[in-house]
């Protein structure tokens, strides 16, 4: 101990350690490791996206240096991007009639549109669901809340791919699929879930909501617990009922954390891969191909790494812009120090 502390004290004496910018040193390791695993692959991906990389040529060549030369893949300039964005045609169909044929890649733009739609619907669903659950498991009159809360996060402990496989079973179109059985019990028609575009879309949303709610609930619950009781009491004395209190006290007080969680979860929705892939590979007939699935399929199923990379990067640019906007607007990077 004494030697150690003597050494430590010696270190303390080094004058520059008192300089405030030296604190950057604390942040650098994390930043470095993160960059190494995120930024380098991103740059690599960027490189690939300008080539005709495919499994056959990408891995050719010997030694670590060939990583940097992308094997024997050839430089093709912006061709991948051009193809992704403008290859093929897109028919604008309304009421069964083709109104307009645009010279753009219909598959990509369809996928792009569906992805944003999915973000919008699934985030709405997630927020509503989690808020409802959080309110229930923090309810004043509810007993055994702690146990309920720890059961409720179970979906978080299961690997997503397992959960999604199970949900695919639930949304089986068969008469005995769980969802259909429930419908039948309610006296409703059964539904061909995954072979109908919008029904499949609904199934994606439900599953996504189920996967994401534990995280949202945890955040919402802790936000709810930070709402001062006095505010509720003041409102009660002011004559506000439950609903009024929810809108005038609860909601404004938890707005910020919930907004934060929503932004995170929106980004997660944007990048959802497993649900469409496992359910019906973005089907039926590639109609619900979310953008990451689209990129994946191009990259792996069709062995077009270059094009896949271009798609991924386009997706990343969009989600990055989305996050940037939200983070800026929600001032999430601000801390108390800047307040």
């Amino acid at each position: 101990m004494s030697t150690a502390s003597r050494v430590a004290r010696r270190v303390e004496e080094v004058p520059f350690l008192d300089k405030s910018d030296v604190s950057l040193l604390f942040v650098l390791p994390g930043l470095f490791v993160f960059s190494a695993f995120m930024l380098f692959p991103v740059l690599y991906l960027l490189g690939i996206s300008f080539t005709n990389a495919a499994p056959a040529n990408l891995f050719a060549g010997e030694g670590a240096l060939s990583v940097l030369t992308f094997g024997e893949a050839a430089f093709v300039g912006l061709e991948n991007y051009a193809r992704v964005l403008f290859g093929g045609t897109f028919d604008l169909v309304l009421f069964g009639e083709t109104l307009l044929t645009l010279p753009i890649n219909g598959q990509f733009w369809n996928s792009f549109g569906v992805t944003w739609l999915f973000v919008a619907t699934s985030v709405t669903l997630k927020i509503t669901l989690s808020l409802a659950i959080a309110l229930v498991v923090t309810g004043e009159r509810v007993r055994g809340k702690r146990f309920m809360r720890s059961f409720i996060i179970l979906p978080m402990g299961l690997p997503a791919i397992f959960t999604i496989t199970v949900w695919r079973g639930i949304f089986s179109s068969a008469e005995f699929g769980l969802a259909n059985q429930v419908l039948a019990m309610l006296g409703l028609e059964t539904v061909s879930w995954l072979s109908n575009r919008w029904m499949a879309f609904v199934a994606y949303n439900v599953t996504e909501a189920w996967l994401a709610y534990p995280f949202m609930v945890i955040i919402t619950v802790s936000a709810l617990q930070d709402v001062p009781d006095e505010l509720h009491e003041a409102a009660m004395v002011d004559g506000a009922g439950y609903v009024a209190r929810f809108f005038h006290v609860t909601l404004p007080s938890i707005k910020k954390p919930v907004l934060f969680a929503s932004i995170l979860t929106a980004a997660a929705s944007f990048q959802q891969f497993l649900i469409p892939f496992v359910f019906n590979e973005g089907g039926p007939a590639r109609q619900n191909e979310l953008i990451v699935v689209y990129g994946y399929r191009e990259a792996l199923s069709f062995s077009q790494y270059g094009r896949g990379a271009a798609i991924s990067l386009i997706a990343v640019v969009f989600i990055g812009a989305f996050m940037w906007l939200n983070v800026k607007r929600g001032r999430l990077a601000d801390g108390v120090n800047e307040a």
Partner: protein
Amino acid sequence: MATVTLDNLRKEFDNGRIVAVDGVSLDVEDGEFVTVVGPSGCGKSTTLRMLAGLESPTSGTIEIDGEDVTDVHARRRDVAMVFQNYALYPHKTVRQNMAFGLRMSTDLSKAEREERVRETAEMMDIEELLNDRPNELSGGQKQRVALGRAIVREPNVFLFDEPLSNLDAKLRTTMRTEIQRLQNELDITAIYVTHDQEEAMTMGDRIAILNDGVLQQTGAPTEVYRNPRNEFVGGFVGSPSMNFVDVAVEGDGGRVALTNDDGFAYELTGEAARAASGTGVTEARLGVLPENVTVAEDEDGLRATVEVVEPVGSDNYLHLDLGPDFIARVDSHVEPSNGDTIRVTFDQRDVTLFDAESGESLLWEEPTERKKAAA
């Protein structure tokens, strides 16, 4: 405005493990300002919250204006409450904060609400703040807004839960006067909880002292101060509070000697002596207020050594060795040095005697005015 009656109110927490309030009965008259005081955890807040409807009593009843409201929900009681930390809605402007109660509990139109808020803001001198948010306000301003929010609703009863305890001393004095002014002006029925007995003493028409959930004494502040019903009240009220000396009681009806091993000796005569000896108590505690202890010029009186002389502006506090924390409050020109031996005395009329065991006053009688009022 309204009267408030608490009848045998009791509140248990934790399935009866904690008795926070134990059989409190209190009548508050129309327009009366009652302060409730007591040490931390004595059940003041709980009592107030039951009144507001934020807790429901385990037993007992609450009446407001003669109507039993024990089971009425908080939002239908028409009371206003000012919280210790103000509990202003942080995301609403001052105007919205003040209008919220009106929106919720009245049918006033938007214009009427605006009007009421404006009037009240004028009265509270917070007009320029109406568009600010609470976190832009200073402590005193927040306090004013909280008061304004309560006043604007023109409720039957005002409840205050230590509204000044977050303010600094200077501001506390100012706001205290402000609340008193409002109370005079609006003639409101108010119950004001505080742990600061100075506040309780100066603000209340009447003061109620709680300890361990039990109501100890109610009465006009000066009366409670001069004539405490038990040792707890004596020790709690006033700053500095009553001095106590443990004494043995000896003697018959006419003359009672109060002595202890530290050389303390005092003699009661007449009425007081009869009362004291009549109870048969032999171990007692003598109480005397600091301002009633005078320094004797001559050789009469008790010898006491001055431990510390504490100047407090107009007076000096002399800490004497007669008992623990025995203080004499004397004029500021009386300035003995630390360690001096002086002689002090006090009048027999100013002496209170408490049963050493139960703490009850041996000499206490119900003041006649209160007797009438309580009837």
